[in-house]
């Protein structure tokens, strides 16, 4: 288990501030955030190679804030691996292992045995990352910190190493905290996701919740939400639970109806491209609350999908539909189109 209580840490002029989160034993936590948001600083502070300037780090339920890194029993993998260049691959993997057998077993499981006899300097970036992973796992740590460990792996190897690591983590009940920029990876592996922005934790939740309901415009922007608009939110009533209300949003030349727990005031409207329904004519009376008329600016094919950009007044709405639908509807640049979005698909934050 990793528990952080108002953890702060300094790295030059940058400051990580008041990070509080609990990652249960055996859980896989994902750390997301733009470059320079403090993700590596967070991992280094948990590992103990960087001092905390405030707050506490609790590992396995005990306060580890003042413990040196060698007493924390944590495995750490940096993006660049930091393999020791004066040692061979095998020596690197055995560096912290209890015995050579444990190191060899780990090398075999992750596929590092294929280049065990080689000099570190002759390895590719992906091979280095595999060796770095094997080296961190060989001492059998029950907490593993990963800083973009798969970034340099080719797609085939990435899938293989990722699933082997997942298997190992489940077998051993390892608690993992994993920094990644890959949203697919975050969704596949993560039990819990946290978003860091400028040294502060801006959202914690399941990856699904973070991607579907970003807590702020900044988070929505970072996760690459297709449509993010700034404006004013007005609360207009109460439905079902007291905290849920019907809301209206106006901004960027759009008037949208939504539901949610926003208290009202300045905010953002976030719409996933997949939640936008397109038609050539105004749909018959339906339950859809938001019907927007616009003109197609671009139809960009993306595999079996198509990304359709529609100009609505002075703003743009992006819809993600299948290629088949785009062809059937005869969607093309300059054509007029009607976009429908259910109020429940408009996330206001």
């Amino acid at each position, binding site marked *: 288990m990793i528990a952080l209580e108002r953890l702060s840490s300094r790295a030059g002029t940058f400051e990580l501030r008041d990070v509080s989160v609990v990652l249960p034993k055996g859980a896989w936590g994902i750390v997301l955030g733009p470059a320079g948001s403090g993700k590596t600083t967070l991992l280094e502070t948990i*590992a103990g190679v960087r001092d905390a300037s405030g707050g506490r780090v609790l590992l396995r339920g005990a306060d580890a804030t003042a413990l040196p890194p060698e007493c924390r029993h944590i495995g750490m993998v940096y993006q660049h691996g930091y393999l*020791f260049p004066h040692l061979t691959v095998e020596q690197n993997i055995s*560096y912290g292992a209890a015995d050579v057998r444990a190191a060899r077993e780990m090398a075999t499981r992750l596929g590092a045995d294929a280049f065990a006899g080689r000099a570190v300097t002759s390895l590719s970036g992906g091979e280095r990352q595999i060796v770095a992973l094997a080296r961190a796992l060989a001492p059998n740590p029950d907490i593993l910190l990963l800083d973009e460990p798969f970034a340099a792996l080719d797609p085939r190897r990435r899938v293989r190493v990722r699933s082997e690591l997942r298997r190992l983590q489940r077998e051993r009940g390892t608690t993992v905290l994993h920094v990644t920029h890959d949203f697919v990876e975050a969704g596949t592996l993560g039990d819990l996701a946290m978003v860091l922005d400028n040294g502060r934790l801006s959202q914690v939740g399941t990856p699904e919740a973070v991607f579907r309901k970003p807590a702020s415009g900044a988070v929505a922007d970072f996760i690459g939400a297709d449509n993010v608009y700034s404006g004013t939110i007005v609360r207009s009533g109460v439905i079902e639970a007291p905290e849920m209300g019907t809301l209206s949003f106006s901004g960027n030349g759009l008037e949208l109806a939504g539901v949610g727990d926003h208290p009202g005031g300045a905010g953002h409207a976030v719409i996933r491209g997949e939640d936008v329904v397109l038609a050539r004519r105004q749909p018959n009376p339906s339950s859809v609350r938001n019907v927007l008329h616009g003109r197609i600016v671009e139809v960009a094919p993306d595999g079996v999908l198509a990304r359709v950009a529609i100009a609505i007044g002075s703003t743009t709405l992006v819809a993600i539909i299948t290629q088949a639908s785009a062809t059937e509807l005869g969607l093309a640049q300059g054509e007029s189109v009607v976009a429908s979005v259910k109020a429940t698909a408009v996330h206001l934050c």
Partner: protein
Amino acid sequence: MSVRPAHRIATIGVVSGAVLLIALLALPVGALVIRGGVDGLRQLGSDIELRRSLTLTAFTATTATLVTILLGTPLAYLLARDRLPGGSFIDALVELPLLIPHPVAGIALLLAFGRASPAGAALARIGLGIVGSPVGIGLAMLFVAAPLYVSAARESIGRVDRRYEDVARTLGDSHWRAVRRVTLPLAGRGLFAAAVVMWARAVSEFGAIVILTYNPKVASVLSYDRFTAFGLDAALPVAAVLVLLALVPLLVLRSLRANTRSIEQLT
């Protein structure tokens, strides 16, 4: 159109300047080796005083270098990793002997470690008097050349990314064990080069040594002694041998640099 002649004049100026400086550096050394080199090498076989003096020089310079490696490497590490309070002051203090005229350095050493000083008296009691002894020669060499080692070693350690140490610590090493197993081996070539530079500087020291210990004579003092007592022709062979000796560390350094460059390209 007017660029070409201006460019040509600038090229001629740059090349002429470079050639002039090379001539200024190479001519005296070349003249010394040509006039005294063969005689010097021949005298190595017959001149016992020259052989003794060279042995003494090599022995004291090596001892001073080994002592500096032992004491200076930890200091260089602490300076490189900003682990000393008042690090920049200590940095300046360590480099100060490089800026002091070397006879002045000899006088300072005499004041601090001569028989009249408490430290000197204590040293003399255990048979380590610094005046007229190899101990004094080694101390003078250490004083003037150790800053070169510490400075270069600090640079070399500073170039090793501290994350290597951090990774070693997450793998179970204590701080100093990580330094010994990872940082020092990675800085090894730089540390060796720093030791070679220090050794070469120690071998060529004259000013500080001559204040503390005229006898027994190191090679530089012997060369000066023969020049003042017997004239230029007598000093030439000793001086030429010293120049030829200086080529050894120079060649070692050049080959180290070439190897380091090829390793850096690989990593």
